[in-house]
């Protein structure tokens, strides 16, 4: 749950895809090359991140053998456990071993002897579902609210939306979550308080998704509504919009045809940044709603010093975030390229 500061900090990092100057000559090939380069850079970044994860878990006091032992095991028992888990090998060897398995989808074994890929096979789709729905809700609602506010700049709707958005984006997910449970589950009994799973490991009913999605999305809606509103305001200063205004075109038409296309790159970047925040917030929200996702797996794995599990979670969430950023880059390239 990083504050708004980190959001502004990460935004330039996803910065303009650049290179519009490459335009006419063999656009397809250069596009593919650029995409490939981008992918390679992101993959390298992910590998560095994974190495950091292994190193960080190593630096924490205690190890997985300790964490999974019972009280009363002697030093010899612990040594046996350490050997069983392969912890007697240097961290670099363990990391390399783990990395070589990665391309084949082998994420290693947990400190309790279960396969990491199996362990994550149900929670990960569940978290994707939760995060995806929250992202969708964020996109739709923040666009709608932002546009509504932008229709009459300085009007009553604009002021109300902007003030609420600012208030909401400052709320941590767990505050939102606890309030939602209290009001919608325990007091009014309209929605389930926690998520329970059925035999295939997914949420037993759709109602169980409503509160977790809201808890995750509400702060992000606040943040993105501000971005949408600000991007539209910036775009409104552009000469072609002023011309359209002078021409007397209807406000709605100006919004859809003149303002939104120009604001799209900024909005895409904002929403993409929210992906990371949504997955980060999932750790907290999943615990409160007992949602069977990857967040609770991660929290437990850190406690257990279970490097393969922590790295496995980082690898697949990293891949998803990279994917979304890539998509956002493409959208921006398309949106800005289309205008030229």
């Amino acid at each position: 749950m990083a504050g708004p500061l980190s959001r502004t900090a990460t935004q330039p990092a996803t910065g303009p895809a650049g290179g519009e100057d490459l335009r006419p000559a063999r656009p397809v090939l250069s596009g593919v090359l650029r995409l490939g380069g981008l992918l390679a850079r992101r993959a390298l970044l992910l590998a560095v991140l994974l190495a950091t994860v292994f190193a960080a878990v190593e630096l924490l006091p205690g190890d997985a053998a300790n964490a999974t032992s019972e009280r009363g095991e002697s030093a010899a028992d612990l040594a046996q456990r350490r050997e069983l888990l392969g912890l007697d090998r240097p961290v670099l060897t363990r990391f390399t071993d783990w990395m070589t398995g990665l391309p084949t989808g082998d994420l290693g074994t947990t400190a309790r002897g279960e396969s990491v890929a199996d362990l994550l096979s149900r929670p990960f789709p569940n978290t994707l579902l939760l995060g995806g729905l929250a992202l969708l809700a964020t996109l739709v609602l923040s666009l709608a609210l932002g546009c509504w506010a932008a229709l009459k700049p300085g009007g009553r709707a604009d002021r109300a939306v902007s003030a609420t958005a600012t208030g909401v984006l400052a709320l941590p997910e767990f505050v939102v979550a606890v309030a939602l449970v209290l009001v919608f589950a325990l007091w009014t009994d309209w929605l389930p308080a926690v998520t329970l799973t059925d035999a295939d490991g997914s949420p037993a009913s759709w109602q169980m998704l409503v509160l977790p999605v809201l808890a995750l999305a509400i702060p992000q809606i606040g943040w993105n509504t501000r971005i949408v509103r600000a991007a539209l305001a910036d775009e409104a200063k552009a000469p072609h919009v002023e011309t359209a205004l002078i021409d007397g075109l209807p406000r709605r038409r100006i919004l859809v045809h003149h303002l939104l296309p120009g604001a799209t790159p900024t909005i895409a970047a904002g929403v993409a940044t929210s992906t990371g925040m949504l997955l980060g917030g999932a750790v907290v929200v999943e615990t409160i709603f007992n949602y069977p996702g990857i967040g609770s797996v991660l929290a437990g794995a850190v406690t257990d010093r279970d490097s393969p599990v922590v790295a496995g979670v980082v690898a697949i969430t990293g891949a998803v975030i990279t994917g979304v950023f890539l998509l956002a880059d493409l959208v921006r390239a398309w949106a800005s390229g289309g205008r030229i």
Partner: protein
Amino acid sequence: MDINRRQVLWAGGAIGASALLAACSGGGDTSDKAAGAGAKPKKGGTLRVGALGRASAVTRDPHGTQANESDYLVISLVHDTLTTPGAKTNTAPRLASGWQASDDLKTWRFTIAKGAKFHDGTPVTAEDVVWSLRRLRGTPSGASRLPGIKAENIKAEGTGTVVLVSDYANAELPLLTRLTTFVLKKDTSEKELGKAPGTGPFKLEWFRSGNARLVRNEDWHGGEVLLDAIEVKIFESPQAMSNALLAGQIDVASNVGAVAARTAEKRGDIQIVRRPNDMAMPIVMRTASGPFANPKVREALRLAVDREAMVKQVLSGYGTVGNDILGTGDPAYAKDVPQRARDLAKAKSLLKEAGFDTSKTYKLVTTEDISGLAESATLFATQVREAGVKIEVVKQESATFWDKTWLKGDLYTTYWGTNDSVVFFASKTMVSESGQNETGWKNTAFDAAYRKTIGTKDAAARAKVLRELQQIQHDTSGYLLWGVADGIDLAAAPVRGLPTLPGYGRVQLERAWLAR
């Protein structure tokens, strides 16, 4: 029927329909609870049980380290242990219907219960039990789970008897077979562990990410099982589990804790099940060296603590006052040892006699491993200040604590979940050579009493020496046991027959039934 309003609103599936039926039948309120208490047990129904656990720590191996209460619950409903915690005697029969010791108390013969069968219909043989116990002995935790019993000293005698030979006389050996001696079929492969048929009261229907559904074993050797099925739901936090119970999504919240009980007190339709002597949170004072090595200093601290206030504030009243003897739930616990009470004047004079440096500030190391532990340290520090002892509470992260402080520190908090045996603590934490001698205690009189206890066959003679052992512990050990927390389960109104035993006794759900 507030609980079911939502389910009625959303009524779609069978759950909604049955909730509707329950609502229409007009039962399920507090009046029902009173009426049903003495009623004849009813067959049928599915009990939804919430239990604590972390998705990352899921274990399917019955002989592995089960950090998750949810995993242990599932395993112990599917598989039987040789013996089990009991109420009148702390060891009760389970898969073993009885046991007999040789005169030297080294050789123990366990008889397998008549009619015991695996879920696939094959009878349980001594070979299966021997294979399972040897497998358990071969795990890294094996030496501490079956202390004194080598793998080669676990043998079959015919098809119905298993012989365990201990390296030393041990009158309490059956106690060791209570918690983890789950029996599987001989030569069950590692891959099949999660699905392997057990002999327990329930059969596993499915298991997924810590959640499971179990159905009744019609042929259980232990008697008739009433519930059709048990659904186990894994919860990472007691808070979420309590919410689920309050919202009617589960029927039992197992080991949910005092905080949840306080919330539920206001609700007439929720039962609070108290299981006394569940969790001891003693303060450990190092006896071997350091500022607390002088018995007078330890006595002073024991006199400085306000036990009633600790139980009231730290445990919200859900607990009992301790008397510095561990194993409070043991039927042989020495209730006649006079209760130590607060005496600040005496504490101060003892500190003076011992020449204790009251100008210094001493560190009390604690963790947040279990609820109330850190709070107990803080309150203790405040209380002993009145006797002139300055204590600063230091909270350590769990892994750091177990690595750096446990067994080594001068003053720290610890906690133990097996409180129904005095001998358990004596053997694990107090006899000189014990592996987990938390206080670094070496007391020849205590050691002698311990050896006599586990080496005496005659029950009356043993009871006498066990009393002596507890007196020594009360007088001079390094433990300050201010109180013992109750285990607390919450249950919906129609649930009956829940276990009231402490610790792992909470998993004995085979007699539970639903009055609806």
